[in-house]
């Protein structure tokens, strides 16, 4: 009889999560163009929106680019959700999910591995976007602690989107249906304060945009960076930092358990 060589010295879910994070980092190394495209796409949007529409946008106390960069920082977090859905469905389609499930690795480790890799992806995305901001003349004005708080809120939003993305990916199953998420990212982005003030939108649209979790983070980040905005007077805009803290917590509380349950249900 053969005896397995696998006598695990330390079989911990943290180590498994690290192994699975490493797998995604290897993907980036294997396909540098694909990750570069993901990172540079938001830069393209900044250049297009900033210079194409920027002239027509009158932002009190600043330029449209000063308004746009915080919005794009929030959008970059949202684009991560789209990449996550694509990655999760691709793994399912290629049978990699099944193969990992046939290994002695827990669902917690699988989700954590995805989460860590996504956090690294988010950090790379923020770095690129902030560098772009500096290149086009955007600056934070309220000091380092405040700026760090802004970055914290952005990552906190991405943390929530990680679980939404994993859940949707497991739910949708195929990369073809994941395209729906790619399309839906745009209305979510436009119906927020990322690009323009909700105050300029027709009533019902403005209401959606005001309460959009993305708006909460974009507005809070503007406030913490000391960047200009259209001086919203809604309760949501005045309490944006609170909302940018609460919204991701709510999303995480809902979607983290849902994502875990979906993963466990793959065996049903």
């Amino acid at each position: 009889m053969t005896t397995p060589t696998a006598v695990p010295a330390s079989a911990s879910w943290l180590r498994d999560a690290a192994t699975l994070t490493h797998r995604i980092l290897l993907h980036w190394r294997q396909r540098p163009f694909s990750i570069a495209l993901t990172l540079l796409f938001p830069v393209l949007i900044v250049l297009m929106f900033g210079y194409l529409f920027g002239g027509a946008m009158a932002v009190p106390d600043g330029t449209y680019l000063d308004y746009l960069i915080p919005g794009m920082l929030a959008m970059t977090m949202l684009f991560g959700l789209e990449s996550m859905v694509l990655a999760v469905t691709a793994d399912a389609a290629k049978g990699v999910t099944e193969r990992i499930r046939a290994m002695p690795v827990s669902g917690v480790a699988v989700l954590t591995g995805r989460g860590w890799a996504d956090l690294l992806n988010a950090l790379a995305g923020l770095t690129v976007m902030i560098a772009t901001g500096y290149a086009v003349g955007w600056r934070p004005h309220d000091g380092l602690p405040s700026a760090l708080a802004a970055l914290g809120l952005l990552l906190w939003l991405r943390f929530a989107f990680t679980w939404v993305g994993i859940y949707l990916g497991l739910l949708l199953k195929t990369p073809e249906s994941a395209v729906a998420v790619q399309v839906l990212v745009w209305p979510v982005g436009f119906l927020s304060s990322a690009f323009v003030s909700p105050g300029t939108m027709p009533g019902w649209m403005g209401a959606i945009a005001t309460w959009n979790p993305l708006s909460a983070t974009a507005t809070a980040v503007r406030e913490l960076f000391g960047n200009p905005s259209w001086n919203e007077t809604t309760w949501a805009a005045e309490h944006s930092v609170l909302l940018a803290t609460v919204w991701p917590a709510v999303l995480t509380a809902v979607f983290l358990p849902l994502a875990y349950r979906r993963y466990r249900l793959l065996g049903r």
Partner: protein
Amino acid sequence: MAYEEGVPAAEHAGIVAQDLRKQYGERTALDGFTLRVRPGTVCGLLGPNGAGKTTAVRILSTLLRPDGGHAHVAGYDVVRRPRQVRYRIGLVGQHACVDEILTGRQNLQLFGRLGHLTADAARRRAGELLDQFGLADAADRAVAQYSGGMRRRLDLATSLILRPAVLFLDEPTTGLDPAARIDVWSRIRELVGTGTTVLLTTQYLEEADQLADQIAVIDAGRIVAEGTPDELKAKVGPDRVETVTRKPTLDEVFLHLTGKTATRSTETVLEPAR
């Protein structure tokens, strides 16, 4: 230590499946599937499309929960101790499932690490398997660039990374050309020489006949006939089994033209059990 938890019962070594049931909505995929594969032997699970072969393999390899019945693999209950089972099995699914973006070597090391080999052991074992499966030259190329046959070999190699006691092969030669098929067959035979228990599903009697000590015929979710290839042929009776002497098949012509040796000119045809 997670790996040593619980003591496997000797009578549960190999594969023991008892009255497994699985329902997909209205459709019954497994309907009282009972099978025993003694340790160190090869069982060919033979059946037509939709018979329930993949469903059985997925339950036995802990990927799917049965609605009813019990199963033990390599000594452990697949529902209660899936983790223990996973340390001891290898699985080659019906469709190749390796990470296409990674290289062959990265795939092997990844799954070695997920099986809790040390980084060193995973690296060594990956090297061994790449050599053994003739993939050394392609080891550092992305799997997306591999041919179907190379992918299948990598798939098989990956399933052996932990030196499993029990190996599940779900139609391992589907989509392969005859030469690649014979190559996979000889690799499976080598494994059997090392004492691995194998459950192999196939739609071809010839494949089961070539490799298996024991054949189980599955239809509509249950085993309808079981025995050694010879017993089975005898049991089914001459009216069900025709031995045909005939001209070379296209397979053999293909083999001849591509310079590989042809096997034989008689084949056994099993008519569907009614």
